[in-house]
């Protein structure tokens, strides 16, 4: 009796789960289905990218889904790519949490004739069709140029970053090169590892400012540390306008950051264009999955896509920029 009751409960639970899922999927009723794989799933940045992906798919009546881990684990991304390939999607756009870890899965997808491209963070050693995203070196140059204009040779910079990520390495290289060219007297004093965690960013940046009081700019190499870096400037009493102010250069378009730029808390922010990354990623995937009468020379069996990287560019947003208002309403999943 008891076992049959348990069986009933199990059956009911399973049916409930299946019905919840089937309702959602019926609404989608796929014609052509495409996947996007990200790390830090749920972050505003990738929500923007996915919104662009979805909107572009809607223009041709295709459906989409977003997969990937809520953390930095690239192996979980690789598994997500494998799953989408097994599911038989028409194309996959993936941002590589680690360039090397994704190689096998991307190549396996292409071998199974599923077009795969990288956006935002590249996996250049893989056979991905192309890369759509910010040219990180150029974006770093834009940030370095803006800092050189703001403080010139007096700039003393601390960098908050995650070590090892290729995308951040390129940004820092561009930033450094621009400073060398435009403000040769400026100096990069030190770098700290914020581990990609905004809560860790505050103590490490506070410690950095205490150890190096000459620092007057914190350059955030990625999206997460800005709020922690700003809190650090408050902790050492150097957040107000004046000769001791530490300017925080953020690398994000999250609403709190944009509000902070408008209030003058942040010196500026490097605004990438994730929405355009999503739009362009979808359009390239769609093109790749629709071969024309002439086969692609570079990717036989697929439709025509460029092989060169597609740079979606950045804009340095400062207080009063009208683009800030447009970015204040981020999409939701």
């Amino acid at each position, binding site marked *: 009796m008891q076992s049959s009751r348990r069986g009933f409960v199990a*059956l009911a639970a399973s049916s409930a789960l299946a019905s919840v899922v089937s309702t959602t999927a019926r609404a989608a009723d796929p014609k052509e289905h495409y996947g996007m794989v990200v790390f830090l799933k749920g972050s505003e940045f990738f929500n923007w990218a996915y919104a662009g992906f979805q909107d572009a798919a809607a223009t041709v009546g295709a459906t989409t889904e977003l997969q990937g881990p809520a953390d930095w684990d690239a192996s979980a991304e690789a598994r997500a790519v494998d799953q989408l390939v097994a599911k038989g999607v028409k194309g996959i756009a993936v941002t590589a949490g680690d360039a090397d870890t994704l190689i096998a899965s991307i190549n396996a997808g292409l071998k199974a004739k599923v077009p795969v491209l990288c956006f935002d963070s590249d996996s250049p050693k893989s056979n991905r069709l192309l890369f759509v995203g910010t040219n990180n070196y150029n974006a770093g140059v834009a940030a370095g140029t803006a800092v050189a204009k703001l403080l010139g040779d007096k700039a003393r910079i601390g960098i908050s970053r995650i070590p090892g990520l290729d995308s951040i390495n390129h940004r820092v290289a561009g930033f450094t090169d621009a400073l060398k060219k435009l403000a040769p007297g400026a100096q990069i004093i030190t770098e700290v590892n914020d581990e990609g965690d905004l809560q860790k960013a505050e103590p490490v940046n506070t410690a950095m400012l205490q150890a190096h009081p000459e620092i007057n700019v914190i350059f955030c190499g990625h999206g997460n540390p800005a709020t922690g870096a700003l809190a650090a400037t408050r902790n050492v009493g150097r957040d107000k306008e004046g000769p001791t102010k530490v300017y925080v250069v953020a690398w994000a378009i999250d609403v709190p950051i944009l509000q902070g730029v408008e209030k003058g808390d942040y010196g500026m922010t490097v605004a990438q264009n994730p929405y355009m990354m999503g739009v362009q990623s979808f359009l390239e995937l769609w093109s790749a999955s629709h071969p024309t009468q002439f086969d692609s020379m570079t990717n036989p069996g697929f439709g025509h896509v460029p092989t060169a990287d597609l740079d979606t560019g950045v804009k340095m947003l400062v207080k009063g920029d009208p683009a800030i208002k447009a970015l204040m309403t981020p999409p939701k999943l």
Partner: protein
Amino acid sequence: MKVLPRQLFQNVIVVQYVGLVVVTLLTLFGFQATFGNVLTGANLEVLAMNMVFEGIMALGMTFVIITGGIDISVASVFAFAEILVAKLMVQAGLDMVTAIVITLVATAAIGALNGLLIVLFRVHPMIITMGTLLTLRGINLAITDGHSVSGFSDVFLFLGQGKILGVNVPIVFFGIAAIILGILLGHHRFFRQLYFIGGGERAARLSGVDVNRVKIIIYTLSATLAGCAGVMAAAKYGAAHWAHGNLAELKAIAAVAIGGANINGGSGTIGGTVLGVIFLAVVHNAFVTSAVNTFWYDVVSGMMLLIAVLLSRFISLRNARALLVLKQGKMDQLSETYKS
């Protein structure tokens, strides 16, 4: 009617296993009927590979949990093994076999150290293994400077990407390890001691069980299995990275608990853990197949974990009550005998 506690325990466990199998199969076939593409060879392969490394860690975790302990360091041991074997081959130029042996010895030593610290200082295993988790995570990051290590030989890649009789090597390893460890746990005297320790450490000591020795060996085994998973993961992904396997310890613990082990120790089986691993893999795959936001996967896994823990708590309370009834019955019988 009086039921012996052992029989009662076995009955409830069987019902729990059957329930888990039924829910897993219903999910699998329900999603196949609704969405298709579930019971294809390609999807089943992906489904199995999705949880195989956590599954290997869960095998070791089963032993640890049966003794009443916990090992949350396995995920960082996993990443450490990935990085160490990669560095030994790619940067130190060692041959594959030597690199793997050194890596497994190193991970075994980490496990032995965990066990030693737990028995020497009588500190809760959660604290000791958390210390190891954080220390190793820092070491992993420091020795790689955040970079991944890649550039392995094809022979090494076979360990993660190759197939034996059409089955992926890590799945073959998981299956063989589960069978061997399941038989040992069910029939070997040494492994039967784990249940005594988990049921009551003091009583086990008084019965002559060398609790300290057993614990050190079990934590060594757990870390070594995590090391094996790490080596194969490096081969599967073709790269070693400090962030790989993040939160894998929680999935391994969840698989063991969902598989019917009492999280307070004293019960659990390898078969149950395998069922728990399969359940988690099927549910995750169902979410991807149906394109439902995978954030809900954690909700379902968490709820199943809570149900499993509550169920095992219910079982242990019922067993304790049945034992009391049995004792009372024996005492009544004795007093009746004296009276007559």
